[in-house]
């Protein structure tokens, strides 16, 4: 892919200079911390409020490693998908609108390299953020709970969650390529999120949807057997490759 290395460096530098990497990392760290915190102190907080007001009580389960893991996974995947959409939505659309795509592609740089650099840079940004978010989540669990997640399973969970975010980034990149509007690209990402959510509850194909990777990820984090996850994982790896292929086909003949 002609020019890939140069363009990847440019994309990574852009993530840094525009503060996107910092913003995404800060959000992930925040939610990595908030996950175990919420689980550890929510019951205490509710009980304290109930006793002060007198009379009302809400049944909240007590702190547990399962609860902390669930909170980490839920927080990071929800905000992670949002960040993936934000990272991908303007990546191609804005470059087409501003004319910078034309400036770059009139140079010895292939369109495949242009797109691949963007997808890899977004994936790396999400990777750094997931690492930090999960890292702080693990650290806070270590501080707040008597036991801690098995490290290998926790790392596998982080890897699965990262790849799920990469799938959504790839979808949004496709949307950003198909349209000249970043908002429309984000819309395509949101529609995909809804479609995957609905497809996720269907029998047979449900386990293969990216949003369904959360359940085996939680099992892995808690040291439980996730069942057969090779198929869903391979499917989602293939999905990113296929999405990139479609994105390239759409972009290959586009007039800039």
């Amino acid at each position: 892919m002609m020019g890939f290395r140069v363009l990847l460096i440019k994309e990574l530098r852009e993530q840094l200079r525009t503060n996107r990497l910092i913003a995404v990392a800060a959000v992930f760290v925040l939610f990595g911390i908030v996950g175990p915190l919420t689980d550890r102190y929510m019951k205490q907080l509710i009980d304290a409020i109930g006793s002060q007001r007198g009379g009302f009580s809400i049944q909240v389960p007590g702190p547990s490693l399962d609860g902390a893991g669930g909170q980490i996974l839920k927080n990071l995947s929800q905000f992670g998908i949002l960040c993936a959409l934000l990272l991908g939505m303007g990546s191609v659309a804005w470059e087409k609108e501003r004319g910078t795509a034309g400036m770059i592609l009139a140079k010895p740089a292939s369109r495949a390299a242009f797109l691949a650099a963007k997808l890899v840079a977004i994936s790396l940004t999400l990777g750094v953020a997931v690492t930090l978010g999960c890292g702080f989540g693990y650290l806070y669990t270590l501080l707040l709970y008597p036991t801690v997640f098995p490290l290998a399973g926790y790392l596998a969970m982080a890897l699965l969650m990262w790849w799920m975010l990469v799938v959504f980034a790839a979808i949004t990149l496709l949307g950003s390529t198909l349209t000249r509007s970043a908002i429309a690209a984000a819309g395509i990402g949101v529609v995909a999120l809804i479609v995957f959510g609905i497809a996720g509850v269907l029998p047979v194909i449900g386990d293969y949807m990216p949003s369904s990777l959360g359940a085996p990820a939680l099992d892995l984090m808690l040291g439980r057997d996730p069942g057969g996850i090779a198929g869903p994982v391979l499917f989602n790896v293939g999905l990113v490759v296929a999405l990139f292929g479609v994105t390239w086909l759409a972009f290959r003949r586009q007039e800039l």
Partner: protein
Amino acid sequence: MDAATIALVLVPVLILQVGLMLYALYDLFQEDRRVRGDSKIAWALIIAFVNLLGPLCYFFVGRDDSRGAETGGMGSTGPAAASIARILDTWPRLAQTTEAAVVTTNLTKRYGGGVVALDGLNLAVPSGSIFGFLGPNGAGKTTTLRLLTGLASATDGTGTVAGVPIGGAGGELARNIGYLDQDPRFYGWMRGRELLDMVGRLHGLSGTALRQRVGEVLEIVGLTDAASRRIGGYSGGMRQRLGIGQAIINQPRVLFLDEPVSSLDPEGRRDVLGIISRLRGTATVFMSTHILNDVERVCDRVAILNLGHLVVEGPIDELLDRYAQPVYELEPEPQQAGSIDRLAAAIRGQTWAGDVQTTPDTLRVFVSDPGVAGPAILPLVAATGVSLVRYERARPSLEDVFLRLVAESGPPIAPAVTVPAWGLDGRGRR
């Protein structure tokens, strides 16, 4: 919860959340920061009150790094002629050749809905020339440039640039050309030097050769002092010069410039035209524009395009000789408004008179036969009692030729005219 726990668990959360918000606000109110919607107050409210998502939305959606400062108050310095000449002397010269640098054969571009942006363009641009590609808005100039630079695909026809077929893959075309878009916008977060460095690397330069080339190009375009500034803070003129810089970093054989001066103030135009002039001999320059004074200053040859059709092509002097109607300019003494109107009416009634243009200061009289008109004008002036300050036969301008040919070619015409080889079109015009 005891105090230690609060410190441990809540302070980091607070620091992260408030810190991100404050950092976003700090970034927002930087002097050269531009935002979508142009309302910093609105973005400040979003950052401050939309919990956590506010700063995120600002960093991803709010910042507009594509626009620079509107004024040239960044201490831009124009290119210094002596050092530029010294640099360009070391650049490879174009080989003397009779081969055309740009050739198109029946090049056609149609869009959906039956819109024909370019219809059967046949063009041969001599190597080493500075070629002006003229036409009114919507004539097909930008479409042609996009086809020739590989950014769009032709519906029909073929073309070569520097001997390389257009529309091919592999980057061979890109290695031989430079291209500057009509309204160049770059990455506002980048520094000028970094942009040139990146483009140089895409062209395969590295190490000392890259550093030297970037330095030379910065000198040529007069941005050495501004090389370490963010492009987002550049004025329009500086951006345009940077655009030329990125287009010439590979010492291209053919340089395509789309309206390179149309958005610039006089000083910026002078600088950019100076750079283009100095590139003579190192590259064939193919420049689209509708600012005809500038074309006359720098171009050797021009082509006029209208409604997707080539109207005429040739050296400027020959086009002027062939198509410019002789014109007489009369400058009356002040305070003669009524007499001037009578004079204009009298001239319009003559068989040799073409268009008569009146301004508060002058009359421009286009004539079909100067041999008849020359001796006849002054008697008409005397008969209408007009006193003149000045009377002369003026040199017709390219603008006169352009306006006349474009007006005449309103509906499609064929075949196109190339001067001097082909003579005239089939409609009996000169």
